[in-house]
């Protein structure tokens, strides 16, 4: 257990998991996960299906509560918070990007993005202004009034990313952000996430794609509900690293 907010560990982490477990019935989806994410990090949580990474995303995103252990996001101990407080926490600190985009079909790109501020108490004009700014940030300044059915898959995911960052979240959670895209669009989305990270956003990508994971500076490898490996590379030797990491994971199965 960590101390109250204000201790060194809390102030240097945007996200902190301590011995987190999550059980569904007698199945242990997470079996004691400890993880710290510092501000400005770009990391991948990677693992095969059933490794517990989706459960981890739910818990990190405060969509679900752990069975035991402590989750601290931006200095807030999730365990002590009510459902309403968690909603507020998500509105203020967490941005979500989903594999299947989850955009409102009949709404324009700007309206979809503005919904990201709807629950933070922002006025309508301000929401629209910031939505347009966010769309410009993801390179869709010319698509503000397009509806999802007028956009390509990659563009839809850009809209979803704009919606996630429009509220300047402390941490951006991306669940298989390239999973529904072709490789070219996927690479562009990844570049966009890298760019956002370089301008200061903390980005956590959850994926089963080893190549994608290997291209990110930090990789947290999940297996059977525990963190199997947590490695950081500082070099630019992405491709070699990816290949060896992929090999290692395949070998371990």
């Amino acid at each position, binding site marked *: 257990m960590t101390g109250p907010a204000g201790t060194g560990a809390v102030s240097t982490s945007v996200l902190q998991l301590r011995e987190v477990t999550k059980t569904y019935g007698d199945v242990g989806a997470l079996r004691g996960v400890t993880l710290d994410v510092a501000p400005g990090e770009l990391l991948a949580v990677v693992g095969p299906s059933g490794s517990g990474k*989706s459960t981890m*995303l*739910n818990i990190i*995103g*405060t*969509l*679900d509560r752990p069975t035991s252990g402590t989750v601290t996001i931006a200095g807030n101990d999730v365990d002590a918070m009510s*459902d*309403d407080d968690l*909603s*507020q926490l*998500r*509105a*203020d600190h*967490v941005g*979500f990007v*989903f594999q*299947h985009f*989850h955009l*409102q*079909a*009949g*709404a324009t790109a700007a309206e979809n993005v503005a*919904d*990201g501020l*709807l*629950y*933070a*108490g922002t006025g*309508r004009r301000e929401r629209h202004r910031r939505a347009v700014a966010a769309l410009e940030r993801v390179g869709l300044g010319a698509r503000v009034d397009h509806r999802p059915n007028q956009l390509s898959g990659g563009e839809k995911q850009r809209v979803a990313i704009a*919606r996630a960052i429009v*509220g300047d979240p402390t941490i951006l959670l991306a*669940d298989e952000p390239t999973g529904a895209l072709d490789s070219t669009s996927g690479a562009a989305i990844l570049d966009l996430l890298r760019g956002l990270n370089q301008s200061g956003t903390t980005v956590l990508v959850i994926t089963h794609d080893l190549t994608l994971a290997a291209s990110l500076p930090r990789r947290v490898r999940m297996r059977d509900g525990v963190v199997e490996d947590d490695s950081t590379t500082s070099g630019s030797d992405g491709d070699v690293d990816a290949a060896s990491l992929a090999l290692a994971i395949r070998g371990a199965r």
Partner: protein
Amino acid sequence: MSGRGRVGPADLLRLGVFGLRTRPGRVVLSALGIAIGIAAMIAVVGISSSSKAKVDQALDALGTNVLTATQPEGFGDPQPLPETALESALRQNAVRSAAAVGTVSDAAVYRNEFVPTPETKGIGVMAAWGDVPKVLGGRLTSGRWLDSSSDAPPQVVLGADAAAALGIDRVRPDSRVWMGGQWVQVVGVLGTIQLADDLDDQVFVPRGLAADLGFDGAPTAVYTRVDPSRVEASRDVLAGAIRPGSPQDVGVTRPSDALAAKDATDESFTGLLVGIGGVALLVGGIGVANTMVITVLERRAEVGVRRALGARRRNIRDQFLVESLLLSFLGGVAGVVIGLGVTIVFALGQGWPVAIPVWAVAGGLGATVVIGGVSGLYPAARAARIPPTSALAAV
């Protein structure tokens, strides 16, 4: 954190409109039940108000101070009114004007001499004293009323229905009817007499001609127009004046009462229609609830995403509640428009004034809000219980 975590009314409305706009077919179908219910209610209330307005209008024009003296209906041997009944009535202070008619029992009227005797078309012949249409607030559509002097030459005025049956719509120099073996000149045609519609299928002749046709000289009805402030008192006085010995043998009625009562008799029918409208509304409300439940089931992912974006449970609940309210309200507005349209078309078709009480429209719309709210409670509560993890679970 006041002001935060709260979605304003304008935004809720926008979300609701958006939710409905993206599913127009479903909106139309589920709002239809409400629309039919409200339309039925508005039309029933509107039509009966318009009919009542027509009666009121008629009563205003006709006046409510006409009293009719007749021989009473009922048991025993009815005594005919005495021949002096009209003079007796006119002697009363409260009576301002009076006229009388007497049935000529065995007389009939025909279009020409070739019509077989039994084909009377139900037209009766009456002897007349005084200006009957004037006392009763009736009108001649053509020609003039009878010369009522006792030595008037043979002439005839036709009641509205009698004129139609005889094929004479207005008076011409050659307008004649065949009565008692002679041609009689038609001098006038009456319009419908609302205060005494039993006169519409009669023809009226002077007493001289009536006597030739076998009239016994006794009036069957005396119509009086009395001082409006003494109508009730005049009822008793009139019977005594006409038959001093036995006033119970004279029946005095106020025809405007009967006219007003005719409107009231429609109320059971109105009640039935309102009942049907109520059932339609109930079924419509269930339809809205059903639609909302399905909508909520379909939109688990959307709810999950909204929770992930920071929506609280009550934000989700409010969103679906507003959607339900809007759905029902749209049905209500459509129903009001349809109901008004039906009322206007029907009333104009009947020649009635259009009268739709504001309370009916306001009540109808208010009812849809209540229905939408009640119908939306359960689906909205279900939506609010959808866990945030649905954002990731749903594909």
